[in-house]
């Protein structure tokens, strides 16, 4: 049994403590927005925020996140950059098959929280997730768009 804080709500998960967070979210809590892609932290489809840090939930055991604040795509609206990221993603028409996008959106939120004006090099370093539909150029533009919108809001 593990006690988790997911999207601001306390949850008891009746699973072994070495179970990766991804499977607790998807199978025990029914939060299917976070995706399984590789199981070895190589693709980023399972990206969630743990205390604001991007975390690949497919290799993160429950024991490592007990007592920490977990945010998934379902609770992304609670993160400040989400509205701007969402709007930019739609303006750029980023998603194609869409499977990797929750992970991409979470990674973009974390990037903008820590770096309000990322350069192309910052984006290269922060967005290491895989997209087989090749939405990378649109994601790059959308992140710049979202950063600009957030900067305007702050003024």
């Amino acid at each position, binding site marked *: 049994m593990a006690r988790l804080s997911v999207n601001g709500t306390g949850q008891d998960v009746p*699973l072994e403590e070495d179970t990766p967070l991804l499977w607790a979210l998807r199978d025990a809590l029914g939060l*299917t927005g976070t995706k399984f892609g590789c199981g*070895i932290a190589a*693709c980023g489809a399972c990206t969630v925020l743990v205390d604001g840090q991007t975390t690949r939930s497919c290799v993160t055991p429950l024991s490592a996140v007990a007592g920490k604040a977990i945010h998934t795509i379902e609770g992304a609206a609670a993160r400040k950059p989400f509205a701007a990221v969402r709007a930019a993603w739609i303006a750029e028409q980023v998603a194609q*098959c*869409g*499977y990797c996008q929750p992970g991409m959106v979470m990674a973009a939120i974390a990037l903008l929280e820590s770096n309000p004006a990322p350069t192309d090099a910052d984006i*290269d370093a922060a967005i290491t997730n895989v997209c087989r539909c*090749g939405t*990378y150029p649109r994601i790059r533009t959308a992140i710049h768009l979202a950063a600009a919108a957030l900067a305007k809001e702050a003024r």
Partner: protein
Amino acid sequence: MKSRLRRRLLIAAGLVGGAFVVGGYLFYRGRDRLRLPEGVGAPKGEAWLTGWLRIGADGAVTVIVPRQEMGQGISTALPMLVAEELDCDPASLAFEQAPVDSLYANATMIADGVPFRPDDHGWLARLARHSQYKFGELLGVQATGGSTGVRDGWEVMRRAGAAARAMLVAAAAERWGMASAECSTERGTVHAPGRSLGYGELVAQAARQPIPANPELKDPARYRVIGTSLARLDVPAKTEGKAQFGCDVRLPGMRFAAIAQCPVFGGSLKHADASKARALPGVQAVIELEATSTSAAAVAVVADGWWRAKRALDAIGIEWYAGAHGELDTAALREAFTQLLERGDARTYETLGDAPRELAAAKQLIEARYEVPYLAHATMEPINCTALVKDGRCDVWVGSQAPTLVQWLAAGPAGVGEVRVHTPFLGGGFGRRAEMDVVVQAAAIARRVPGTPVQLLWSREEDMQHDVYRPMALARLRCALDAEARIRAWHHRAVSQSCTGELTARLQPAAASDLMKDKTTAEGAFDLAYAMPHRLVEHVLAHQPVPVGFWRSVGHSYNAFFVECFLDEVAHAARRDPVEFRRAMLAGAPRHLRVLETAAKAAGWGEPLPPRTGRGIALAESFHSIVAQAAEVQVAADGGLRVMRVVCAIDCGRAVNPGIVTRQMESGIVYGLTAALHGEITLKGGRVEQSNFHDYEMVRMADCPKIETHIVQSGWEHLGGVGEPGTPPIAPAVANAVFAATGQRLRRLPLRLA
């Protein structure tokens, strides 16, 4: 020549016979393409107006999309066709994936399979396409592939929109006691002098009107929806994580299954000691599955969560029999393919003049060998299928490119007479999701735990090692130049397995045969637009235990690499500029010429570049669209390749949604770039060596080039696909750029400098 005529006559006789039987049957039976689907009701407050849309009392329009959305944007493009003729507000559009019904069959995809050049409009080609189309209608398979979505839907979905509009107008006229001709429509409303009613207010009455068979269609000059970059209907849900993919299906009491398949192709299960696994928490069943024509021998564990199922699976001591292919490796495969390339019996796909004679007499002969490896699809969503066997029926939830095949193939292993298919989004397809392996497995597992829905999910390792791979192919190209350094003769001879033949054999072993030509083996080689006086295009069929299947543009993906790189070599030998050399052979192909020139101009062809940087170009027609790409590649001191910029030009005829066309070009380029720079599946000991993204690398953000796309408008006469045509030109464009930068000719993918 004589034997060629005889062969053509034999083909003709066969086709005429087939067309007679099929055509006669259809004439007798008829095919009403606007009818309602069978056994499907309408949600409360909505009504069907033809089998292609429903309208609600609130005026919301739900378009039934017969092709599966897997990223290509079809769930927006097809509703646009309906909206145009229906004259509704595009903001009122929603979509729903079609139920399985022959009404939604994709006959265009079947018709495209005939091995005739796209520009062949002779009687034989037309007859072959027509009878294949009729056969496709008869077969009734709903399938998504071959970049056919918009082309197949173009006629019927506009007609459906126009018919529905006519029914709404007739309902209004009836209510107002006037003639339909006195009414007009404007964005979801029917108007007459002094009065108007919304579609939602009229729909119940409209649904009682007869469906007009041949409603009048708009003049394209009046289009207001088609040709605009309408925002995709699926993007908001996909951005918010709300889109439901196959593996997101959750049902009451659902269990999860993990699977281990025999790692050696063609092997079988020797022994599985499941005693430890059964004792682990949450485990419900351990199931052994025998190999079938579509799926490998396997052991599956059913548990209350996927992780528990996987852990229990890993605790089973499984021993396999390797079978006949336990020694197979990539070196042996290359040796076998090389033998076939040298001496195998070839099939001829194109004969122009007498290329062998001209090549034998050539003063200047250029010859080269090319090679591409097997490739995995690596869809982002791992392969999965959910099944429930209950009360003699099997319900299947699966993101599939062929829901009709799911219905056909699940019944046997599920042991039921009735199958219902539910179709969530596909997290990537690329041809992989036309396969039925996971469906057969899930149905067999569900049969063993009746009443319990089970979601079978493959690990990434299972996906990588049990794919149906893009064929490995070897080619030898030869070319003779004339005194003016123009191409006199061209000979293309390639070896590969057959995707179409092997898929047919997997689905229906009794239908397995090498008699039929597989167009996909020679597409992109036998259908070139370049004028050459003598040309011979041959293919030698290989048989190997490594399964092959459709993969984003399949044959085009490697034939474009062979043809466009070799053409670059020939241009170099002829001391001509690669663009100029191609241009000289395209006088009779103005659309190709314009696409080539658009890409070259936008790329700044001929302008100077920084040191160690080269520019390469390639042109390829596929799926009735013409694409040229110019790539700029920087070569690092350590030999690393960095693609800086890609300029793409496409002529797809009518661009229904230019925004989607542009993004599909980007998508095809990145997909093809991963193959060009990284993709390689190798075998050792009868097994695939790669297993996950750490050893099967992908292009990512940091190495994705800047991409710029230009849509060349060629009017309303033509219509081509866009899901696949972006992929073929990128590998040759990059390889040619590497040559321009370094002088090294790379003839094998993935591209690696010596």
